[in-house]
């Protein structure tokens, strides 16, 4: 999937190439990058300056493509294995001597009621504390 380049991509690529630039060009590019940081849009001027140099032009394009690949590589995919079953919150019938229990799979789930006594189940720890 191809994504559109945004000004930040150009700034990132230009910054990456700074060490390879000659003195004068480097100063100009640094100044443009500083302006970009303060909110001014300088990507077009940066492209013009950098692409004047034949060697830098190719490296600039490569740097931009690497940036794009980085974005494309961000696509999420889940792991292939089966999910394990961590501990789950347990609920129990509050009637003394009756130990009907039920767990909930996730927060917000209604633990329901005891089918024998028709009373709402309570957290397991709560009965132990009674």
């Amino acid at each position, binding site marked *: *999937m*191809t*994504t*559109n*380049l945004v000004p*930040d991509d150009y700034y990132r690529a230009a910054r990456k190439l700074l060490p390879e630039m000659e003195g004068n060009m480097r100063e100009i590019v640094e100044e443009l990058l500083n302006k970009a940081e303060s909110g001014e849009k300088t990507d077009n001027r940066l*492209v*013009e300056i950098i*692409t*004047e140099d034949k060697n830098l*032009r190719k490296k*600039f*394009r490569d740097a*931009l*493509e690497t940036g*794009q690949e980085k*974005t494309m590589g*961000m*696509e*999420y*995919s*889940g792991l292939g294995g*089966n*999910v*394990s*079953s961590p501990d*789950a919150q347990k609920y129990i019938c509050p009637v003394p001597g009756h130990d009907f*229990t*039920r*767990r*909930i*799979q*996730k*927060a*917000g*789930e*209604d633990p329901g009621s005891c089918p024998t006594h028709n009373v709402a189940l309570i957290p397991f720890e709560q009965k132990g504390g009674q």
Partner: protein
Amino acid sequence: MLSKFWESTGEGIAGQWLQYIFGPAFLFWGGGLIIIVFQLGFYNVWNWISSRDVPTQVAALLIGLFVLLVSSKLMEQLRFGFLRLLEGYWTWPLSYLISPLTNLQKWFIEQDRKYWNTLMDKLEKGNLSPVEKRELARLESNGHYAPADLDDCLPTILGNVLQSAESTPRHRYGLDAVICWPRLWLLLSKEVQDAMNSARQSLDTLVELWAWGLLFLIWAFWWPGAILIAIAWMIVAYILAVQSARKYADLLESAFDLYRWSLYESVRWDVPRKSGEDEIMAGRQLTEFLWRGTSEFPVRYKKDK
């Protein structure tokens, strides 16, 4: 100088056009063309094309490309409506099906939960067979992508996967996902936004694919076999869309799990210090504040550090 540089950018734009041309719309129009060509007779069509002059052939090709691109763009505008349709937000006449199908979904979820409880008891006692272990993993996964509160259930599986993701932050943190999401989105890093966009794009493409499958029924006027192709197409697209929705749900839930603090910090509220009821209360208050602009008591904003 610049022209050479723009060549590479041009390649990117060409890639986007290729996506349009060879996207789901291509399958619809290409399939329809094949049906019509074989109905009219392949050689009749071939002879008709061959007897045209080159400008007419080029014009026909360009018109074909234009139809492909315009229909792709049109579908892009309609896909949100199709996503809502697949989720189960139906209007008349489908609204009559909402109640029975939602009850059916609830019944399946309840059965899964009962069986999951039975297997969890066995797991606790340590006598789970390998087959049951795999079954438990399946139920664990199904349960995760089902709404916690059965009253939130929708009539379709896809709807329930997305509903589950949207309702989880409310149950866990008191934050309403639909209200908080636009604010949280603005606080996410570009990388996280890209990952979310990519997952959403994938879901949207599959919804479009399903919609083109539905439209493929039109070709049944020329060839009744198109009905079978359209049904198989829609089933495959739906299954893939559910898988894709699960990925999107994973990321949506994870964004709330990991970045909800930045919501509190950005509106200069105190971050909840305890999980559970305390956090849920704070989340509800923040949701009210973000949606209505009101709060039970005036909130003292934190100072900027």
